[in-house]
């Protein structure tokens, strides 16, 4: 049955490949290292956020605060670099620390006060957005030699694509997340919590620690995404990345992860992000299509993938009891 669990992942990958092929068939220019490099660069911050969201959703939770955390981190970096002589690297470390601690605090609230993640992270979303406002309501430009240096780092691929450091960071984040989720006890505990928190607790999973870790990871990755976003825009703006949490959730669902938790792959999220990026690229290439088609198509994709999951779940529950009467005996 392992393949039935991976089927949504395969379908996501196939969707991406087919969609890309269709795009290329219409606009052969889309098959270039430039498009691929831009897909990575443009979606780096969203992709990193979605990795954290995958952890949260796999555990059966949700994190609405990530968009605000990204904005806060961006403004924080901009203000710190403007008003202090702190080196960007130290500022990065500080921002990551704040975001991680903030996430951990939400996790602790969810676990110890037994409040629904939806409400806790909703409050966190308001809080972080508000703190970003407090730091600055204006867009604060970042003008630092180190930023310029980081932005100038890229690898020029044949065909003109510039693979930047943020794109690399995106790939590394996905790689590390895959290892953590599949090869560490923490990762397996995330799946265990998503399967059934009560059973996981009975089986000795440290629920408190795991829940706090999950939201800390999500917060920390949102912080990292904030750093990437500030590199991408060279500014910090408290009104930026409103609604990013929705895009991240959508990417996770399109990537084949069950919103009820316990089943899914972070690799799927990667392709979810790429599909969403592809839609935008296509609309840019087309030129005549309006931007709102992105939302409609993503909504449609969401619906399709949810129905697909539903259908798969239905098929497996309908089939298993019969199928195993005979195969299960040794």
């Amino acid at each position, binding site marked *: 049955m392992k393949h039935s669990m991976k089927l949504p992942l395969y379908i996501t990958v196939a969707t991406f490949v087919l969609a890309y092929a269709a795009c290329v068939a219409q606009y052969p220019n889309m098959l270039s290292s430039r498009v691929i490099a831009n897909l990575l660069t443009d979606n780096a911050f969203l992709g990193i956020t979605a990795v954290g969201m995958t952890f949260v959703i796999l555990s059966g939770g949700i994190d609405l605060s990530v968009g605000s955390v990204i904005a806060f981190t961006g403004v924080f970096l901009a203000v710190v670099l403007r008003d202090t002589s702190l080196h960007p690297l130290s500022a990065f470390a500080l921002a990551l620390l704040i975001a991680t601690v903030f996430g951990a605090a939400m996790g602790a609230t969810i676990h110890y006060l037994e409040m629904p993640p939806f409400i806790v992270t909703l409050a966190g979303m308001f809080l972080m957005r508000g703190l970003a406002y407090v730091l600055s309501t204006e867009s604060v430009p970042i003008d630092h030699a180190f930023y310029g240096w980081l932005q100038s780092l890229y690898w020029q691929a044949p065909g003109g694509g510039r693979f930047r450091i943020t794109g690399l960071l995106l790939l590394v984040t996905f790689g590390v997340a895959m290892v953590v989720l599949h*090869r*560490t006890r923490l990762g397996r*505990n995330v799946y265990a919590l998503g399967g059934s928190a009560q059973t996981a607790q009975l089986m000795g999973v440290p629920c408190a620690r795991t829940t706090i870790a999950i939201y800390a990871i999500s917060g920390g990755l949102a912080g990292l995404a904030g750093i990437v976003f500030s590199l991408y825009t060279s500014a910090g703006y408290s009104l930026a990345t409103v609604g990013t949490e929705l895009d991240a959730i959508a990417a996770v669902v399109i990537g084949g992860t069950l919103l009820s938790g316990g089943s899914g792959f972070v690799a799927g999220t990667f392709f979810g992000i790429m599909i969403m990026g592809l839609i935008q690229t296509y609309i840019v290439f087309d030129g005549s299509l309006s931007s709102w088609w992105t939302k409609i198509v993503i909504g449609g994709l969401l619906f399709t993938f949810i129905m697909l999951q539903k259908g798969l779940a239905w098929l497996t529950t309908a089939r298993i*009891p*019969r199928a195993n009467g005979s195969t*299960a005996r040794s």
Partner: protein
Amino acid sequence: MQSDPKPVLHATGISKFFPGVIALDDVELQLYPGEVHALLGENGAGKSTLIKCLTGAYPRDAGVIMLDGAEINPKDPLSSQAAGIGTVYQEVNLLSNLSVAENLFLGRQPRRFGMIDQRRMLRDSKDILAQYGLSIDPAQLLSSYSIAIQQIVAIARAVELSGKVLILDEPTASLDREEVELMFSVIRRLTARGLAVVFITHFLDQVLAICDRATILRNGCVVGTRKLAEVTQTEIVTLMLGRQLEAATHHHERRETGDVLLSLRGFGKRGAIEPFDLDIHTGEVVGMAGLLGSGRTETCNAIFGAQPADQGEARLRGSPLRISTPREAIRNRIALCPEDRKTEGIVGDLSVRENIILSLQARQGWYRPLPRAKIEEIAQSYVKALDIRLANLDTPIRLLSGGNQQKALLARWLATEPQLLILDEPTRGIDVGAHAEIIALIERLRTQGMALLVASSEMEELVAYSTKIVVLRDRRQVGALTGDDISPNAIIRAIAAEEEPRA
């Protein structure tokens, strides 16, 4: 069997009090290595409370637990497991979204350089499962295997983590015969390794087949510990039931029944219950006997439309009837008190009053609310008639005891004035007093001309109130008893009748 005279587990003086009740009173339990020890008793006798005290799920109020000669004080199931006592419950407490191997190793996966060593985990899992006679692929999802396999994986995990005492709480309740045999072979392997196994079940034949000794509980007290080789089944049953048995069975006068109310022909649902014929008359109690999983609940659900039948026909007072939802059943004045009170019966946060009038209101439709005075009158009258004990009618029903919840559910259905009342395990998990009252109520409703269909695993109870008993086995009707033929022995014979190889 107990070659070793020193008990591995010795619990003495275990007592547990709940507000107003003594759930366990000075209970003693001794387990020897290599024995299978049955824990017997009726529902509410204190079996599960005892288990929960031993595993630390409940704090005990008195008593000492000695494991291997040393006192232990488990504060939760995890710590008792670490001390050496593993527990496996009827419903599999594993994670179906993880692989078999991960379920075996969750929290203690073998690691190399900080990473989980997948290959070693799979290899070790294979080795462990082989000890239980299973050669399944541990990389597969747990949910892709049958309940029996999952149950054995749960046992394997519990044994790996504890290793001295294994408590099996109704592990066979949802298994078929072959699966029970598989389970028994696993238990024998474990006792051969020197484990002490506590076996809790309602099936006496299984107790006799696998257990060495039995401790029998009644009303929270130990009424005896016996070597099973030295006692008869009757003796055990007498110990379990005390004097209740005679009280419940003695009256057996002729019972007049009325016209045919519901007539089923070739009625069934694929995968749930084989087609069967059944006539239910007014003023008749049809009992349904059979082991767990024999199709009793499925039959009830099919008639009520909760799992609608997909073959055969039904006639109500002679006219054809199609029921595909509970609503249609209720409209035809058929009622069902389901087996699982908590998840299918009560609406926990609603008051007792609201729970009582819920079905009547649902049948009336939302636009025709029952007047407050009427609601009050109905609720009050049933609370009085059924002797539901509560502080006031506003009490959320979840705060009531099992017996009172059951009576409130009966009130809900009686308020709809059904012509056919289906009761699925009406006396499960309720106290002795309420038990007797519900049996008396069944009798009273019958004499008032209602038709009842009662499924129960308690044979004496069925014998006491049924005018006709149908016996189910393996999702099939295998016999029917009427009049003077009705007796516990006859039921057992009917259940056992076709045990011989099926053609």
